């Protein structure tokens, strides 16, 4: 069953600096469909638009970010809801109860001058009516214990906790109201390897226990390999490959994905590996046709003229590449 869908979603940033207008096409014509009880991974380099996509899906957009087209649907209790046609008040009701968001660097979302339990209480009170202070504290305590975290942290201040613990507290905060969809933006980037593992485990446990949906955005393919069920690869604002995790790793189709997978160092193999050549394009001045063509070793004429759409290359596995169309893969 579907939980969330985007159709040709376009979200750009419009900047005006000293009289010059710049349009940054961070999310360009994105079609996404996320089911229930699944961990959906979105991968890509920094600057490819993944964070913008999450913000657009969370529907908490602020200028200079704007929606330029397309639709976004949440499936609340089986019913499709066109999110951008709702009023702000209605959207607010859905936030944190249907869908929650753990932004990048979210450890700083914790108020440094109050104890953790206060932050929880404020959060719960502002989204659930009719809870007394003690009931809110109790809700937080139960939730923390369920996640296997020490209850003592509720009485601590954020600076007394380690970075990894703060990140897990933020995740606990985002899930205390049991949302159906959780979106996490680079939840492990600033963390150490062992702490990262703890955070990833926590996310996986939450998903298993509640059978909800987790949308995980990270550029770390190792993390995707470990917990994502499906992966969408983003490049220059578009999704260029999408499919189940095994398919992406065992049979990467788009040239960019192939470079990406092959460049990852693996233990036990010290053979020379190569990075993707060149640099990612600026989202302001995208190349014509396929945005990857300046860096692609298999480029031919059509690539510079037309932008490829996602085409099925094998069952349940799509790639946006003219080579697939021409049957060369």
């Amino acid at each position: 069953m579907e939980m969330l869908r985007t159709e040709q979603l376009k979200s750009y940033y419009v900047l005006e600096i000293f009289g010059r207008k710049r349009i940054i096409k961070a999310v360009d014509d994105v079609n996404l469909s996320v089911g229930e009880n699944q961990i959906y991974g979105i991968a890509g380099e920094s600057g490819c638009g993944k964070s913008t996509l999450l913000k657009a899906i969370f529907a908490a957009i602020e200028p200079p970010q704007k929606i330029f087209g397309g639709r976004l649907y949440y499936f609340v209790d089986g019913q499709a809801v066109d999110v951008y046609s709702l009023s702000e008040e209605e959207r607010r009701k859905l936030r944190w109860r249907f869908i929650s968001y753990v932004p990048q660097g979210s450890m700083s979302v914790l108020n440094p001058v109050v104890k953790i339990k206060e932050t929880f209480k404020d959060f719960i009170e502002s989204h659930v009516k009719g809870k007394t202070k003690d009931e809110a504290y109790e809700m937080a305590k139960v939730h923390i214990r369920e996640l296997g975290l020490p209850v003592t942290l509720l009485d601590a201040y954020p600076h007394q906790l380690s970075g990894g613990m703060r990140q897990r507290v933020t995740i606990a905060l985002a899930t205390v109201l049991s949302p159906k969809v959780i979106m996490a933006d680079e939840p492990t980037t600033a963390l150490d390897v062992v702490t990262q593992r703890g955070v990833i485990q926590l996310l996986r446990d939450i998903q298993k226990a509640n059978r909800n949906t987790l949308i995980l955005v990270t550029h770390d393919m190792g993390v995707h390999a470990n917990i994502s069920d499906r992966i969408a690869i983003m490049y220059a604002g578009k999704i260029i490959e999408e499919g189940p995790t095994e398919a992406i790793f065992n049979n990467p189709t788009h040239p960019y994905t192939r470079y990406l997978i092959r460049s990852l160092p693996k233990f036990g193999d010290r053979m020379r590996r190569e990075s993707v050549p060149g640099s990612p394009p600026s989202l302001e001045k995208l190349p014509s046709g396929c945005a990857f063509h300046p860096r692609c070793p298999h480029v031919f004429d059509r690539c510079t003229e037309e932008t490829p759409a996602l085409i099925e290359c094998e069952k349940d596995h799509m790639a946006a590449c003219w080579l697939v169309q021409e049957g060369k893969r």
Partner: protein
Amino acid sequence: MRVLKDLLRDGRFAFGFSVLLVLVFLSVLSFFSPYGPYERNPLMRDLPPKWPHILGTNSLGQDIFWQLTFAVRNSLVMALIAALISRVIAIIIGVIAGYKGGLVDRILTFLCDTFLVVPLFIIIVLVATITKGRMSLPMLGLLLGVFGWAWDARVIRSQVLSLRERDFTYTAVLSGLKAFSVVSKEYLPFLVPLIFATLIGNMSWAIGMEVTLAFLGVSNLMLPTLGTMLQWAINYQALLLGYWWWVLTPVVTSVFLFIALYLISISISAYLDPRMRIQRIGQA
């Protein structure tokens, strides 16, 4: 001058700059004044504004308009002297304290705090009273300069402290730069907006102090400045006697000057803010 064009786009700067230009023009006019600044009674007294005396005359028989030109010139010059002197002191102390750290920093900060806490106003008034009548314009500038640096030294020091921990300080050291070069090449671009904003602020403060000192009667009342003009007017009961042109002239001019300096200061600060400058890179 692309910089000027960019700045003029900001309405605040445009207004402040034009007012300042007018005032500078007035100052320049003072060199063409038909009357000397110290002359008394060359004209009929207490004449209301009418051509050729477009701002009228005062009870000392002086043309107010031409007096104003001298007043504006003197006030601006004095304020500039005060601001420059205090800038230099503030930079030296702030940079050394921030960069060296340790004992040197503690001593300098203590010095700074002393100047901040001690009631400067009273000291300045005292000094002015003692040297009353013999205080020339540059002297007044020097006096105000020597007392006006403490706040800015603190600000500069904190900026230097934070810059010192940035990676590029280490890159500069690895590139073989010595301490002085690190400060002048790496930090100065960040310090310039601070220095400039506080420079203008300091000018405003100096002018304000001057007006206050004159008002209290402790400055050299022979020198025509905005403050002394006001003092003479009050002394001669100008308001009571209905010679509004004599009182209003220095007051309105001062107000415009303050507003102009303020607007210029904030708009230039915004323009020079490193974050904005970074955004402008690559636009040429």
